[in-house]
């Protein structure tokens, strides 16, 4: 073995050791600063973790683009949902007067709000784009109460790391981290384009998460659960989507 290749071997060895220990340190730091998504296991874990970590570092406080009124889509589109059943029909007949949003988990005051109460809370509106992972999109004006306001009202405990939200459709549940939960554009929406939020678009209550793909903006929200341990829900992947093979984090 020549002198050069021995030297090369040693340098490569040192570089490899440094690289490996660098990875270990990076993984520890990432966990500590909440940069690892719940679905980080499995073969696609490294890519998901890189995407989520990079975007959390880059976009923690950034606002989704807002558009002018003239850019609102004349013909928005909503994917069909499965038949909602008799109970939903009864809600619909009574104009959702009995619709309630319950809030539980790590809160000082577990609560339940009627739709009328939610509508009486401070409102924010924004004209933003909703993008489906399939590739289509539309722009609409969304009006609702900021999720952060509801979290403040129920006394969210400081150790909360995720907000889980459930749909009236029993198998649909989602979760977001605090960067999105406390984000000023994250609204419990009850109006779209100045009118009642249509059922096809998630009415009476849809959580709009503006910096992620459409499937994080869950329709027919009935329950919020605040937690510091996302792993204990469902299969421990953070939401129903990864259980069906889709990424938990949909900032893309």
């Amino acid at each position, binding site marked *: 073995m020549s002198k050069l290749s021995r030297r090369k071997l040693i340098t490569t060895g040192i570089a490899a050791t440094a690289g490996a220990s660098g990875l270990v340190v990076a993984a520890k730091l990432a966990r500590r600063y909440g940069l690892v998504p719940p679905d980080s296991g499995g073969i696609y874990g490294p*890519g998901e973790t890189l995407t989520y970590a990079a975007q959390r570092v880059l976009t923690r406080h950034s606002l989704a*683009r807002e558009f002018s009124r003239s850019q609102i889509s004349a013909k928005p589109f909503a994917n069909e949902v499965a038949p909602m059943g008799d109970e939903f029909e009864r809600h619909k007949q009574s104009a959702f007067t009995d619709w309630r949003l319950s809030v539980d988990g790590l809160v000082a005051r577990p609560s339940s709000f009627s739709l009328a109460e939610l509508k009486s809370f401070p409102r924010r509106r924004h004209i933003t784009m909703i993008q489906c992972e*399939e590739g289509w*999109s539309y722009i609409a004006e969304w009006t609702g109460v900021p999720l952060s306001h509801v979290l403040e009202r129920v006394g969210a405990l400081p150790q909360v790391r995720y907000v889980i939200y459930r749909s009236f459709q029993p198998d649909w549940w989602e979760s977001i981290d605090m960067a999105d939960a406390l984000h000023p554009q994250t609204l419990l929406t009850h109006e779209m384009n100045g009118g009642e939020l249509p059922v096809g678009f998630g009415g009476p209550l849809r959580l709009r998460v503006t910096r992620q793909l459409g499937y994080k903006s869950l329709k027919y929200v009935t329950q919020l659960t605040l937690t510091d341990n996302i792993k204990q829900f469902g299969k421990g992947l953070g939401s129903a989507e990864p259980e069906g093979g889709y990424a938990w984090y949909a900032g893309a």
Partner: protein
Amino acid sequence: MAETPHPRHSGLVRVTHWLITFAFLALLVTGLEIVVSHPRFYWGETGNVNTAPLFKIPIPSSRNMVPTGYGYVLPDQNGWSRYLHFQSAWVLVLVALLYGVASLWNGHFRRNLLPSLSDVSPKRLATSIIEHLRLKRPGPEEAWSYNILQRLAYLLVIFVLFPMIIWTGLAMSPSFVSAVPSAVNVLGGQQSARTLHFFLTWALVLFLLVHVFMIFLAGFRSRMRAMITGRAPGRGPEPGPEPLERV
């Protein structure tokens, strides 16, 4: 160790070449799989089945709400396709960065890819184009260096097509553009970014097809061996005053 003065392609070029090849193929397959869920393209900010498309691809879709004219729906493969697409994109971007920085540093771009001034004359270019069109087999001198068209094609792929396809990909990310809105605004909108991303894919596929065809024309075994093991027929030029490796 055998007497090898220096390899045709450096170890870094060989390793990054194949990593990028595999990442690109994974991106291509998963990208087309994602397109199948909505094989319609638009220009501007938004588009959906209620709006007129710029064009559609006449294939069946994996989602039942897209009017395709076919009476059936393909199986939905978007979940793993999206996971693998983004994971491969990370591999491609990180490996390309390593290749790019190293090649600037060690002079690979300047030495092997930048055409000499005398080569970019219209006459030389015309000669090379005619030789290519006649499918003339390259001579032995080309076993150790790239011809002018090859250099220009590689520079186009490295400095235009790949940066553009990464950019248009990022411009579709709702989270990325919340931090860098101009990334999508200058393209004319999110759907424009998606359409451009699709066209850039075909530009890269065209490059891949021509590239592979040229490998066959030049001699599949010798060119593949050069890119896998680094060995090539004949002896390459001496490394010259520029040391190949900085130790």
